[in-house]
């Protein structure tokens, strides 16, 4: 019974169309850059969007090195998918490749969140945990050493991938609920509910983090 409820609760999130480029074992196809069409296509994408991807990744990860990795990852995954690039819609009549831009933006967000998650796994969990959970007074010193944005990054790393993505798209990257629901193929109410829940959870966590210093 409980399992059924859980499942029902999860359905909306899971039903969001999986647009993220999934990791496949396939190597970069030979000639992915040399083949006519694909080459110039990817190159144009790179020229046009590397800036957006890097900036997004930098915002989310807070590190130039990680942002560079994200840029690399996004295009590497794109090249892996090179034979199937049809899924990237061609530019519209006015010449602005709207869908492609949104797609890459999302890919950048996801790759950057991957970095946060990995960072979360690899950081000394014990110390972080003590920072986050220790509600004893005398917190201030530690609190100062950990910036609020750093805290948010680690918190995002602990969220479920889908939730973190929606949160970042909404609050960091500034998409509207409607845009997000279109991007993810989920209904607006689902997006709104998820955002509400995340905010609630993050508020609780930040409360613990601040440890009643008010």
């Amino acid at each position: 019974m409980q399992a059924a409820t859980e499942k029902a609760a999860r359905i909306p999130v899971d039903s969001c169309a999986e647009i993220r480029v999934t990791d496949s074992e396939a190597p970069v196809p030979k000639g992915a850059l040399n083949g006519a069409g694909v080459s110039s296509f990817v190159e144009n994408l790179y020229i046009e969007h590397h800036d957006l991807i890097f900036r997004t990744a930098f915002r989310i990860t807070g590190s130039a090195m990680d942002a560079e990795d994200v840029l690399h990852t996004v295009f590497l995954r794109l090249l892996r998918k090179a034979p199937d690039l049809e899924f990237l819609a061609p530019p519209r009549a006015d010449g602005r490749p709207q869908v492609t831009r949104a797609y890459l933006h999302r890919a950048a967000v996801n790759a950057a969140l991957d970095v946060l998650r990995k960072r979360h796994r690899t950081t000394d969990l014990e110390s972080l945990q003590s920072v986050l959970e220790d509600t004893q007074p005398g917190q201030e010193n530690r609190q100062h050493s950990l910036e609020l944005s750093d805290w948010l990054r680690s918190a995002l790393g602990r969220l479920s991938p889908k939730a973190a993505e929606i949160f970042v798209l909404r609050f960091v990257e500034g998409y509207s609920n409607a845009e997000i629901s279109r991007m993810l193929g989920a209904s607006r109410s689902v997006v709104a509910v998820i955002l509400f829940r995340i905010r609630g959870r993050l508020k609780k966590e930040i409360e613990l983090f601040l440890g009643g210093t008010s």
Partner: protein
Amino acid sequence: MRDKHARNALENAIEQMRRQQAEPGAIEGAAGRVWAKLTDAVEAGASPDQVDPGRPAPAYAPAEPATEVLRGCSDFQNLVPAYLSGQLASSRRLLFEDHIAVCVHCRKQLAAARALTGPGAMDEIARRKQQRISQQNNRRAGLSGRRIPKWAIAAVIVLGVGLTQLSTLRNIIWPREVHAMVRTVDGTLFQIAGQTTRSVRVGDNIAKRETIRTAKDSGALIQIQDGSQIEMRERSELSLDSASDGTTIRLHRGSVIVHAAPQRTGHLYLSSGDCMVSVTGTLFSVNRGTKGSRVSVIEGEVQVSQGSKRTLLHPGDQLSTHPSVERVPVEHEIAWSRQVDAHLVLLHALSAAGKEWNRVEGSALRYRSKLLDLCPEDTVVYAAFPNFSEALGKAYEVFQQHINQSEVLREWWQSPSRHSIGKSELEEMITRIRVFGSFLGDEIVLAIERDSQGEFQAPLLFAELRRPAEFAAALQTEMGRLAASRGVSLPLRVVTDRRELETLSKHAALSGGRREGRARDELLIFAGQDFVVTSPSSESLRKALVRHDNPQASGFRKSDFHSRLASAYSDGVAWLFAADLRSLLKEHTSADARLASREPHRKDADTDFLRQIGVADMQQLIIEQKTVSGRSENRAVLSFNQSRQGIAGWLAEPAPMGTLDFVSPDSPLIASFVLKQPVAIVDEIISLVQKSDPKAWHDILEFQSQHGVDIRSDFAAPLGGEFLFALDGPILPSPSWKLVVEVYDPAKLQKTLEWAVTEANRVAAAEGHPAGLSLTREDLGSRAFYKLSCSDSPLEAHYLFWDGYLVAAPSRALLLQTIQYRESGYTIARSPQFRSLLPVDGQINCSALLYHNLVPLAGSVASLLSPGGAGLNSDQAKSLRDLAAQMKPVLICAYGEKDRLVVAGGGDLGLNLSSFAGIESLRRLLPGQNR
């Protein structure tokens, strides 16, 4: 209040994050670096795992700048040996383990490498993994929910059984019964089954698959139906089961000493979970515990199989299945036995005898032969084999010495159950072989002559003679003895006098020219001063005598055949069969001379035809079998008098086979070859057709002009020279075949194929049939897949052009998998098992190879057969699995050298003694033969 504070803090955090801005200079720098890396990755065609910056990025933190870069699965696979031997640097090791965790192919390679080098437990793991994978493959093929057609199972079983053991088939159809009885119990013996525990008494029967266990401080002796005895130590547990050709003792835990009675045809098996012991009549002990099992041999020969590894143990030898189980003296291992003293003496006596026996055995290679010169001038067939009677005699002598020295051994030797044939008969037989063998030299030669008329002469059998006078006398005595004891007189005549032979020859000549009347029914044995020769023809013997007197004058010495044989001797000869094909063929043409004189043009056409197909150039065929440094070698050489031509010339000289890269190590059947020039082959066929059947040629020309095609330039010209056909993947419900052909001009070939389909449909339409064939193209990204299907048949073929090859398979999934094998390097050519089968010689490539390994095939079929399902019960399914375990892979290679074809095979060519045993057990099924 607190809530508001938290909300503000969260807003602040988000705001901080949003405000974080990268510097424009940093962005452009990073963009340049990333683009360079991307270009590199694409050029290398690398698997992105190791350039994925998710892990420590090499470009920023070049931890190991000096070491080579890992670019793909094959690089990781190259690290396997270093990883296994623990020589990998810690950073590399981390990378390697990380990759192994995500890459199935590399994991398999690692498991395979481990299985080859590591302990038997690893074999088991690899085998189970393989089984699981084949199960998954089958499930993927949609088999799980479907009922498998019985005929398909039957076909696979018959295929497998036909190649190895008929007895298994028998066992599947009529499972063997197992009877055993408790002879003695010292303490308590339980029969346990689930919730019930019952104590077993002396005289009780033990049924098939009943589990019995000895209590603490107890022991028991069990006797099986065939007379074998199992002595159980305390706290030991076992059950008995039927095997394909005998009984299996399943040792669940504890120690046993098995005194296996001589098995008439089959084997007695002992399975300890991590190894399988098979014997035909020996004394050995097995100890199975938590860490593994240990097998010790007291008497006889024991074969232990662990996965694909087989080891032969002799008295005093020991084998353990896990490295943590160390060797202990065999004496300690059997110290608990109640008959330990007898066992011990036997052990010492036999292990000493065995060591000497090993020194005796094995006939040496022969590097020269006097007998070769004695062969007639027109010898067309020559066979030589070693005189092994001496080795046999010596071995027996050594054995007798040991028997005389040891009382225990003597008792054992004289016990009545030891021999299926009478002991005295055996002794007499060995003595007689030894006596006659001792008169003879190292070699026995058979020669068949074909005279100038094209008639075969009676075969001649030669051997050197060491003690001529005694030999003749012994032969006479033997004949007399046989005549007296059995009342038969052998049609043998021993001639020692040269004049007697000449008289006989004259008589024969008088009594009807070439037909030798009376002499024909009699085998003449001429025992000369230093050689003996046997033939029904006195004239042949006389001539051999002349050659012996003056070997320099022998016409045979001047022939090519002789020099070829002499060169074979210079490499060492054990068993040899040779045929002079040139003379055989020459005789063939001259035998038709009468016909030819009437129809001269026909004769010319015939000779032309033979020359065209390359048969006329054949010179000699030599087949050899010898054991070099413990490895048995089989080799056949077909030589030509000039460079190979015609059909014989089609096979290219040994060349690398890229086609093997498309086949996985699990493939059960592979046939691969490299042709010289497909165009040249078509040319040859055309000229052959032109000459032999002008009308057919005319038809072909007409066909070509009618359909606007040129077979030579459209079909043959785009092809490279490599071809491969293989079965690879699930075999049911439809076999996963694959065809790989090297193609130099894919566009042209594709055009030709399209044309062929259109034409076929056009012709069909002209005859009133609907268009049946269809060739469709589907693009998946940059890959173009083609599908050839037929409207009235469910069968279809998919193909694509990849890396210069045309790859065809029955489904697109299989095509993708095939390409993945090539990309990941998970291929048969790199499989350790395949490589271990390659023949040892100077060649690095081969021109053609045939490989079959039915083990995974039978394994996957067996795993499909759940008890009760598909009409097979658990016994039968088990038998099939046993069968799979007993099969061995076979590899035969052919080399097309300039003027000869060489065929070499590693391993035993699918023939072993147990397969004959299988036939024997089938024979016993016949009415009246049963037991």
